[in-house]
């Protein structure tokens, strides 16, 4: 069917689409812009103006030189030690017990503190804390957790979870907030999730809203709401799954991901995974395409195509050779989120990360 009219309004009008346009067009946005507050341009301009421009004027140069001298003297004489309760950092609030930020302990009398860059937040078995960052989101830190703040700047917010459990609700733009674990990096793509890391560095992530990307080198996983994914030190993310899948399916997948060693074992449990899968488990099947050996890929393709037919532009041959564009097109067909969001993050994150750490 020609979809030119749907695409750009050209070609022969489709009566059904016209009817839909007529009915839904009543809901079109027509509200005027609100009165926007004054745009505070000072820090914006400072950030964008080339450094040397400020020195075009001699009086600025004189003032700046004076400030530099004072700053240098202050730095070398006073050298203030970082204080977790003042200055820049992420706001931490004690919920229970005695969470520690660096060497400082939060208690009933001083229930709030700041987690500064490079600092560590630790909760013992009786403690719980809450981190809230206005521009980023909120993170509940469960007992027995240790995390660090290696990086937080404009457009890049990074936590490292060494062990324990956190519950994150993130409202920063997708891709701006990541959590490093010993076995994978969790990338927020607009979501709420729980991340647990055990003492050996293995972990599991449960998404409750939106979706999360899980990545170690080229090994990646997308975890939408209602799904979970394990991760193992050195090997990275396993295969995501919906938690309401059948016990047999989950047991076989667990074996496939983490316990099997020989190709024969993996092929055997793959048979169970395919046989037990439902339409909803297309999430798992799509990920398996890149995780099985080439001889098994055709079986996974057939099972996935049985539930979600390959869309236009996706061929069996292309999937068998793991064509990235075709995999992305099929992923979009599953309805969990647009792969372009993740690809955009992949294109920009290394650049952001490098620049921010300089």
């Amino acid at each position, binding site marked *: 069917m020609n*979809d030119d009219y*749907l*695409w*750009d*309004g050209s070609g022969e009008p489709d009566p*059904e*689409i016209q009817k*839909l*346009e007529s*009915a*839904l*067009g*009543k*809901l*079109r*946005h027509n*509200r005027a*812009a*609100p009165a*926007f*507050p*004054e*745009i*505070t*341009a000072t*820090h*914006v*301009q400072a*950030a*964008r103006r080339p450094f040397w421009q400020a020195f075009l004027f001699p009086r600025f140069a004189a003032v700046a030189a004076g400030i530099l001298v004072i700053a240098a003297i202050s730095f070398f004489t006073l050298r203030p030690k970082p204080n977790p309760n003042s200055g820049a950092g992420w706001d931490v609030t004690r919920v229970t017990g005695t969470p520690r930020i660096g060497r400082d302990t939060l208690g009933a009398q001083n229930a709030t503190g700041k987690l500064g860059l490079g600092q560590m937040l630790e909760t013992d078995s009786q403690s719980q804390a809450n981190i809230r960052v206005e*521009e980023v989101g909120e993170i509940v830190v469960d007992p027995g957790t240790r995390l660090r703040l290696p990086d937080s700047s*404009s*457009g890049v917010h990074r936590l490292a979870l060494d062990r324990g459990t956190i519950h994150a*609700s*993130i*409202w920063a*733009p*997708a*891709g701006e907030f990541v959590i490093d674990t010993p076995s994978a990096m969790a990338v927020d793509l*607009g979501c*709420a999730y729980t991340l647990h890391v055990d003492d050996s560095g293995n972990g599991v992530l449960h998404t409750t*809203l*939106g979706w999360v990307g899980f990545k170690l080198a080229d090994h990646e996983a997308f975890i939408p709401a209602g799904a979970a994914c394990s991760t193992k030190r050195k090997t990275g993310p396993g295969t995501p799954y919906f938690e309401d899948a059948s016990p047999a399916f989950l047991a076989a997948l667990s074996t496939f991901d983490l316990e099997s060693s020989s190709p024969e074992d993996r092929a055997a449990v793959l048979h169970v995974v395919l046989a037990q899968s439902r339409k909803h488990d297309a999430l798992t099947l799509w990920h398996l395409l890149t995780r099985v050996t080439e001889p098994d890929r055709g079986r996974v393709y057939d099972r996935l195509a049985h539930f979600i037919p390959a*869309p*236009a*532009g996706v061929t069996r041959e292309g999937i068998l050779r793991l064509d990235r564009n075709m995999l992305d*097109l099929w992923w*979009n*067909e*599953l*309805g*969990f*989120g*647009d*792969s*372009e*969001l993740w690809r*955009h993050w992949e294109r*920009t994150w290394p650049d*952001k990360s490098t620049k921010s750490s300089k």
Partner: protein
Amino acid sequence: MHCISHAGQSAADVSDDCQLVEAACQGDRSAYGLLYDRYARMVHGILLARVPLNDVDDLVHDVFLQALPRLHSLRDVTRFGAWLAAITRNRANDYHRQSVDEVELPDDLSANESGGKPTSGLDDAETASILTAVRSLPETYREPLLLRLVEGMTGPEIAERTGLTAGSVRVNLHRGMQQLREKLQARRGMTHE
């Protein structure tokens, strides 16, 4: 792409998105107003795919007010649309996190939403029924479909505004429309029985 807004140039003269962003960054509120005019429909459509209709208009304003002080963090001004779309999706997620008693979109919008917005068209049962059908589609499809059918944006415009590839938008529109036709057909069948 490097954008330079020229001194003395009013916002009205600035036709390019990135020049508007640059102008807004330098304190030009009318430039931000023009960005609102260009992108409000996109924001409205994305929200309509995710939150109850009665709250959509207020949230559109919220999104623009939330984005304003963060403009300086936008490193690539040519990605303003994609950046704003991401803020919008996150605002919708945040809406659900903050809501005590609503997580899922209601099935029957005419019953749940007509009270607060009588002129919105939801007193029209057909509109409500179609909207409900669109909102029952996977997220990947309902967003471009609402931008196309409600906001009147063309496919190329959706791709340009949201920062998605034209191919991706075209496929999603096509597939979404296919599924919507099936749903509407099934509903018609049910009402005739």
